[in-house]
């Protein structure tokens, strides 16, 4: 489990502060922002994959909202049956009436039909009650999350690099370079192990 509070405590030490009260050139919110930015960069690399069986299909309804923190859809299934990923062009090539086509069970899904936050099932299911499961790259925004402890080290170095790069009397270009290099090293190893290259 990684937590911002633990990373912040370590960061205070590297910024020569005992606590948030001792910070001279930064605020606590600013440092938390650096940590959050770093975590989002890892999220975009696809390290955090979630699978949510979050809703049931509704008869004659093809559009379903994706979970709020979805960055990209990896896989969609209905009642344990995987749907094939498709785009609007595929669906149009498949059937000119794809918008109104219906079937008992959907066979494909598309995420480019109705904005980025909606998944479209094709054909539109005529029966409801199927369990819709989405596997997706999650944009982790929480201040605590399930992850190996080394990811907290990445957050620490990424935030240290940003903090020391701020134009202030606390700026240290040499520390910035080293911190960013170490963050990049950890990120490259983590992405190699856990990135979504091998779906």
């Amino acid at each position, binding site marked *: 489990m990684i937590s911002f509070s633990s990373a912040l405590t370590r960061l205070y030490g590297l910024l020569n502060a005992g606590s948030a009260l001792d910070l001279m050139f930064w605020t606590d919110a600013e440092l938390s922002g650096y940590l959050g930015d770093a975590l989002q960069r890892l999220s975009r690399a696809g390290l*955090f994959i*979630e*699978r949510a069986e979050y809703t049931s299909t509704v008869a004659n309804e093809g559009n379903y909202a994706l979970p709020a923190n979805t960055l990209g859809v990896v896989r969609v299934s209905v009642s344990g049956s995987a749907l094939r990923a498709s785009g609007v062009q595929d669906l149009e090539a498949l059937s000119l009436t794809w918008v109104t086509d219906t079937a008992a069970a959907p066979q494909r899904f598309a995420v480019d039909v109705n904005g980025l936050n909606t998944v479209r099932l094709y054909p539109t299911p005529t029966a409801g009650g199927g369990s819709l499961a989405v596997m997706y790259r999650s944009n982790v925004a929480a201040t605590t999350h399930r992850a190996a*402890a080394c990811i907290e080290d990445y957050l620490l170095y990424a935030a240290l690099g940003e903090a020391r790069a701020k134009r202030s009397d606390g700026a240290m270009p040499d520390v910035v370079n080293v911190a960013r290099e170490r963050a990049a090293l950890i990120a490259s190893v983590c992405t190699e192990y856990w990135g*979504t290259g091998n779906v």
Partner: protein
Amino acid sequence: MTLLDLRTTVLTRANESGAAGYTSDQADAVLNEGLRLFALMTLCVERTIVTRLQPDAVWRQLLTLLPDFLVPLRVRCHVLQSGAAVSEWDVPLWDQAEFDELSPAPQTVMTPVRPCRLTDLDALSLAWETDRNATVKRYGCLGVDLFWIHPAPSAAGTSLELVYAAMPTALANASDVPEIPASYHAGLVDYALSALPLKFGGAELGDSAALFARFLEGAKTCGEMVRTRARALQYDRTPFELRLRPRKEPAKGKKQ
């Protein structure tokens, strides 16, 4: 080396101990940081667990079960079977109760579980999630901990033996010994001495670059050893290939 040995060495070599310099806590923190980075790059810390599978459970978030999980290395399926023995004439033994034979002792049958990708399973069958069998045949892992098996067992009695690369246990007590091979303990001192000056920067930080490079060199050597062993054991995952140096550019003037 114990944590006390490592800490003492770090503070002595840093020559900054005392109120104005580095504290024991700071030394311990960077030693643990180096330990984590070393284990992450080399996958040299291995653990094995046997866990019972819940019926019908295809998906699992492994970090909730194993907080130190990094990547899976090998998976085996254990299925408890009774009366599976067969005589040399292919007749099941213990099938005639009237002979007052003893009940056969349950046997645990162990079978390897092969790694696979989601796309492989989807290509086999789009409804693979609904397949059920007492013996698990395939597994996969995506992201930091999303783990799946195929087919999932339909009843209790199946266990999974998971060999995995783990984050080492943090060094907390003076007598704690790092879980990485002893010959690389000195590398942790190098890492600590290169990480401590990040607090102050300046020439001290610049001088520490060589120590960090030496730490990485040790990690690379250990990683190669672990990789060779992993291949020999036919593990499913080899350690990350360290790509620390940029690819060499061809010398100017030379023909390609």
